[in-house]
């Protein structure tokens, strides 16, 4: 009898599993977006941007301002948030990337860490330490076979996956995208082939800024908007590292993998374990397979 009460049926368990998987994919798509932004910057400019999470956070605040303060319709909120994200990205490129082009990696890391603190404390000064809700998507659940999905989940997954697709097309088919890939392979050879390196750097940060703003916009309805929401970048690092940190598809796969792993660990092991698993995976992968779970060995 007791057994029946805890696990009513095998069917219920299966549904719980699927529900968990979907939750994991939703979180994973966001991690993948963060990882994508980090990897794009890293590949093109070899800067590991510790301030990326704060760019995401600023994106969320920008959308909050356009949505709740100016009361713009949703498409305009998207557009303006992306624009302000781009401006922020360009600003950071001027402050961090340009002056420190020849500095040691440690100097660059410290500079981005400083930028992280600056953006976070600025947000806290401007908007205060509290939470804001950003209800841009419907939350009413709808039935899909026997599963109930919230509009939130669906939109998050759809929008993030379609943006990943767009980026794939951009990198593979456009001339600018090809130039960016060439630069990340070998900057000197690329510049000899006529790729303008400064322009590539500029564009990379602009694109990453837009992506960060988009990510912030998608995360905000789930978690609310608050100054510490940039901590998601650590999950993005973990996702990127799982994928080897050199390849965009690897980072995206790593993001989904991390999201699902977290969701499963959270519901089947313990909720405390949910946050730890990202860091355990991060450290373990870096120690045992520095090329990532999906990367080539050696």
């Amino acid at each position, binding site marked *: 009898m007791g057994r029946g009460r805890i696990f009513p049926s095998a069917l219920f368990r299966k549904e719980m599993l699927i529900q968990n998987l979907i939750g994991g994919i939703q979180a994973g798509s966001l991690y993948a977006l963060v990882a994508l932004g980090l990897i794009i910057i890293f590949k093109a400019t070899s800067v590991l941007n510790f301030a990326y999470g704060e760019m995401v956070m600023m994106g969320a605040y920008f959308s909050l301002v356009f949505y709740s303060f100016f009361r713009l319709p949703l498409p305009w909120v998207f557009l303006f948030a992306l624009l302000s994200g781009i401006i922020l990205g360009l600003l950071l490129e001027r402050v961090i990337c340009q*002056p420190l082009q020849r*500095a040691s990696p440690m100097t660059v*890391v410290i500079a981005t860490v400083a930028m992280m603190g600056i953006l976070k404390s600025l947000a806290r000064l401007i908007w205060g330490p509290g939470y804001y809700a950003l209800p841009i998507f419907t939350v009413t659940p709808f039935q899909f076979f026997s599963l109930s999905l919230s509009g939130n989940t669906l939109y998050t997954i759809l929008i993030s996956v379609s943006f990943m697709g767009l980026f794939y097309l951009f990198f593979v088919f456009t001339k600018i995208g090809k130039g960016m890939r060439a630069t990340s392979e070998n900057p000197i050879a690329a510049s000899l082939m006529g790729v303008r390196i400064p322009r590539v750097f500029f564009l990379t940060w602009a694109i990453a800024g837009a992506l960060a703003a988009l990510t912030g916009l998608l995360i905000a309805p789930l978690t609310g908007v608050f100054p510490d929401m940039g901590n998601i970048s*650590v999950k993005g690092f973990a996702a990127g590292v799982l994928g080897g940190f050199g390849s965009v598809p690897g980072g995206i796969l790593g993001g989904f993998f991390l999201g699902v792993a977290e969701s499963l660990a959270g519901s089947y092991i313990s909720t405390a374990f949910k946050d730890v698993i990202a860091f355990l995976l991060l450290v373990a992968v870096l120690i045992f397979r*520095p090329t990532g779970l999906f990367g080539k060995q050696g």
Partner: protein
Amino acid sequence: MKWTILGSYHKTWVPLLLVLIGLAAIAPFLDVYFLYILTIVCLNVILATGLNLLSGYTGQISLCHSGFLGIGAYSCTILMIRLHLPYPLALLSAGLIAGCAGFLVGIPALRLRGLYLAMVTLGFGEIVHLVLHHWQGLTGGPLGLKVPTARIGPVVFKSELSLFYLFLFVAFIFVILARNLIHSKIGRAFRSIAYSEIAAQACGVDLAKYKTLSFALSAFYAGIAGGLYCQLLKYLSPDPFGLFESIQYLTMIVLGGMGSIIGSVVGASLLSILPEILRDFKDYQELIFSLLLMLFILFMPRGIYGMIRSVFRF
């Protein structure tokens, strides 16, 4: 050659000894608030000196030093509560436990550099923070732990003055220790690794040994600082051991001067006193800290002490 090294020894530790005696002499006449600030200065000097051994001299970044500090503080307290160890023993074990943790973090550092190392240390720091929060049976979780008062023989370290003398004494010993270490074979190995790992290896420096040693030593310093810190806090919670604090320690050595012991003393003192001066602007503190870090890394990468040295050419 030998004489110049000896000469530079004198240059450092004679003024340091004078500072020590001076501080010890005026301490009884200071009010409690000043004493508290000076105690914090001593604590941060130990930490920054340890971090400088790792980041400044060996060139390995660490974003988890507040994690080592936390390990030290918690192990010292738990050893005193559970095993009733006398304080000096608990303090030493706290340093050793943190040192072991540092050794463990140092192992991946053999294969990773720069950015990847930053990520591992970031991850490790977060793990420590989360474990302190969630392992309630041992650490008390967010509720915290009450720290037993330290006593060494007949002396009870309860008053601010006695704590200050303890901190000052330990800080002095550890600064001198670091100074001597830097001029030994180990210190030269550290600096050669920072300069070029390949060149160091070619000259016969055992990378595996010295990198892990540098991590372990630096974490040992942080652990000792933690063992002292818990006495000052009187009540332990996981809050003061987060990422922001790690960044703050990094700021200290960047501000003071990477790769210089006196630089870390200068940086630690400045950044411990600065928050007290900026007390009225508490909301702006984090912003000012981060801005300082940014400005120094962009325009004065050798820090205050490095600049003074290049101006006066010594």
